[in-house]
């Protein structure tokens, strides 16, 4: 189908974009990569009256390491850049591992990290990644800026904590901790499809093999990306052996309430999450450097 009538404005600066959004409110959408928004417009499920094209704002595309412990990624950074950036591979192996699962190269050539997070599809990979990494997101409006923790950002399907006049402009993520191991895995019907279930795990071990830290986030397992870290916290202080892995898997499974999706019933999704927890933990464990 063709989109409904709309007004298109190419933003000339960040201030311009924010002013337009403040003016038009809910009637306007930012157009970033468009890989999530335009399909919904083509189905006429979304009918924005105004599209503010922020692609000209090249200053919003950047990947920087700060003080050795933090990565700052501009919201308009395209997946294509993130995939090929050796800094990303080195400092955020979890994100690096997840990126090739996102759709297909043509999508990743346009799609942006910020656009995907702001779209907040609960089956998307990046929301789970930023939660698993414990990141925070910077929102900006004509009234100023604020930081939002990743775990507080995703409210409901396709709904974030962004106010009507706010734009997500930057994502801050901690770099990989020494000796930690991470793993991203998903089970999808076809490569690039939305996952029936997906998991992002970061695991910290102390010398001697006891778990000192564990973050687990799931995609496709709830109405929003699911932070299962609390449910899995029983593993902290334990040896990461098969019995502990089994117990963690069971605990995570019990904590979720998967919505049905087209390819998997809630029971099957729950089952897949259990399988993923085990496999991802085993892999993350192997990757913990001594």
């Amino acid at each position: 189908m063709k989109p409904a009538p709309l007004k298109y404005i190419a933003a000339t600066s960040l201030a311009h974009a924010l002013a337009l959004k403040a003016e038009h409110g809910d009637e306007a959408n930012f157009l970033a990569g468009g890989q999530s928004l335009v399909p919904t417009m083509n189905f006429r499920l979304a009918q924005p009256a105004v599209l503010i094209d922020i692609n000209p704002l090249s200053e919003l595309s950047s990947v920087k390491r700060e003080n050795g412990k933090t990565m700052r990624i501009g919201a308009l950074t395209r997946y294509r850049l993130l995939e090929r950036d050796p800094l990303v591979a080195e400092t955020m192996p979890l994100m690096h591992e997840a990126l090739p699962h996102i759709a297909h190269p043509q999508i990743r050539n346009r799609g942006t990290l910020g656009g995907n997070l702001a779209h907040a599809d609960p089956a998307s990979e990046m929301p789970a990644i930023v939660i698993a990494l414990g990141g925070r997101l910077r929102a900006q409006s004509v009234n100023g800026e604020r930081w939002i923790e990743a775990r507080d950002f995703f409210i409901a399907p396709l709904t974030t904590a962004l106010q009507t006049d706010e734009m997500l402009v930057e994502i801050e993520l901690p770099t990989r901790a020494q000796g930690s191991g991470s793993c991203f895995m998903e089970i999808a019907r076809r490569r690039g499809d939305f996952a029936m279930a997906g998991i992002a795990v970061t695991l910290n071990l102390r010398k001697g093999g006891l778990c000192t830290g564990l973050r687990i986030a799931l995609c496709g397992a709830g109405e929003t990306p699911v932070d299962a870290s609390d449910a899995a916290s029983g593993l902290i202080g334990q040896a990461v052996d098969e019995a502990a892995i089994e117990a963690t898997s069971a605990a995570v499974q019990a904590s979720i309430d998967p919505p049905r999706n087209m390819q998997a019933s809630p029971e099957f999704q729950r089952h897949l999450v259990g399988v993923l927890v085990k496999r991802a933990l085993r892999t993350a464990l192997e990757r913990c450097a001594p």
Partner: protein
Amino acid sequence: MTTRYFGEPIKRNEDKRLLTGQALFVDDVELPGMLHAALLRSQNAHGRVNSIDVSAARARKGVVAVYTAEDLGDYWQPGPLLVPPPPIAGVVFNQRCQVPLAKDKIRHVGEPIAIVIAESRYIAEDALADIVVDLEPLPAVVNLEKGLAAGSALVHDDLRSNVAAHVRQTKGNYAAAIGKADCVIKRRFLYDHGMSSPMETRGVVAQWDGRANQLTVWDTTQAPVFVRNGLAGMLGLSERQVRVIAPFVGGGFGPKIMMFYPEEVLLPWAAIKLNRPVKWIEDRLEHFFATTHERGQIHDAEIGLSIDGKIIGIKDVFLHDTGAYDPYGLTVPINSQCTLLGPYVVPNYDSTFTAVFTNLPIVTPYRGAGRQHGVFVMERLLDFAAHELKIDRAEIRRRNLIPPDAFPYNNEIIYQDFAPLSYDSGNYEPVLDKALELIDYNNFIAEEQPRLRKQGRHVGVAIACYVEGTGIGPYEGAKVQVQANGKVSVATGIGTQGQGHFTSFAQIAADQVGVDVRNVDVVTGDTDQFYWGAGTFASRGAVVAGNAVNEASKAVRRKILKLASEHFECAEEDIELGNGEASIVGVPGKSVRLGELAQRANPMRGAVKPGTEPGLESTQYFGPPGGATANGVHAMIVEVDPDTLMLQILKFVVVHDCGTVINPLILAGQIHGGVAQGIGNAFYEKLVFDDEGQLLNASLADYLLPTSLDVPRMELAHTVTPSPLNPMGIKGAGEAGAIPVGPLFAQAIENALGLADQGIELCEIPLSPNRLWELIGKQNR
């Protein structure tokens, strides 16, 4: 005559245009003043239309016209029955055909209610939202068994039930024979075949030239000749006033031969009425509702065998979902009924089906055309029998194969071409042997599988056999002509949707007439270029049109030889053709170019002998007495992840016999493509309707077509058992790849996971990780 091209993997003549973006598809047609159409389609599956208010739509800027059924007047009529029921005793058939625009009732989601014609498709879609329809929803008939139960809503109010058809065919006497069986297997099977989903959706452009009194219609149809004939009749025009062009078409697979789609009927009428060209291009969302599907059947089947696994008889009672209308008659369920018999000796057969009207889109043939359903039932019954009788799966098939000296083999029951189901030729055991050899069957079971199992891997092997009735009538024709420039033109009435006709037909003509295959220009799908024909369907293009091309080429060859012998004043036996010229054997330098001969054959002045036909041209027709039966065996090794139920195909083998092969490269492509669609059908593609007849997964994001990562590398082999029914010995091959993949998956997954030992059987298609988990889990919980 030495052949240079026939049987060779000649590269395609049509490729360059397609590779450089120069090929014309229907949406590429741009005409001055062209308008664009969009159709308002029902959001409900079943309902009474009380009123339609198009006034706001008509008032929208950029909208030129809006039409409903009322505006069509006498032009409004249900479509013709394309395929009458075969002459089977006792057949019950209720003909109910689709209409161009809904009048009183809506019978499936997507049924057109109104057509908007505007300056752009964008505006036309805007106007759809302006139309107000007062629709009184009715309960939807979605489930076949519930649809036949007393008290069900009726899809067609003037019928007393939702029975569209009832057919029973028998061979031998099952009831009498079954008592002698040592083993009887009885099961219920569910087989759901999906949508064709070609990459190009449908489209129609209609242009009326009021001064030349000519209508030109570009249409993605697989049957341009019959569309031309039908439109002429409907519009009160002579056939000569109507030209239908099926240009390059982006995949057909069956549903593009269905006619008359509402848009095919509406666009020409509107173009004449408005005196402006009109274009309608189906978008992908519409395609899910507006183009026909194949769908499901429920089989309650039983097989009786002797202790050594020989089939004594089969009884099958099945329900067939025909959708809201049945313009294509009984082709699909008859194919299921007939193809179930497969390559096996089945002395007693009792098959009954009831076709059921539902409030779902119309069902017409899609690659395989119902054969899949029958093959699934037979292959699964044999698998279960093999398990019970403790006979190897391949062995039980071998024991039942029709022996090579039994051909033509008459299965007696009536086939889709209204003739008794007779297999013209076949040699089945070598095909099975070859497949077993290529998949390394015995070694896999004895060595590989146990070895991999010890490593914790769940791998399985499967083998499935099938036959395919192809190359049916009525006929096709071809005109072959040597042009003044020495090139050869070939025109035929069928259309092409990627099968390589521009090359395979060129190969036939090039060999007969002695020119370079690249100098043969083939025209298909243009009713002004060739007047007669039926269309591209049922794996018949190469057989029927190919033979017509051959006959016409042979006739042209005879004319060339005669003319050349007169020219050189020698005997015809002394002439040889090659490289575009006629020359005298053994006399170098004595040759004349074919183009020059063609010119001589069309003198501008002077007298000719009575009875002389000008030029080097001939039109010939070919109509086979019956279908030619191709056959094949597929084999597959699959690995299943027992935790996620995801699978990976490790090896895929197809051994195929389609008689004489024109172009092995094109044939391989056809088989690869068929297998890919079979894989989609077996494990990925499922149309999900809810109880209200709403399609829940109407997008390519949710209706899963296999990608390059889902279709494995395939290994192909062929045997050649020529057909005695046509001079070239050809059998069709277009649908073969798609037919046995469903039972192959079921068998392989059972074998990989050891399901038989757990008492779990897979009796349905499509499967998926989710469905497998439910079926296996249900047993274990």
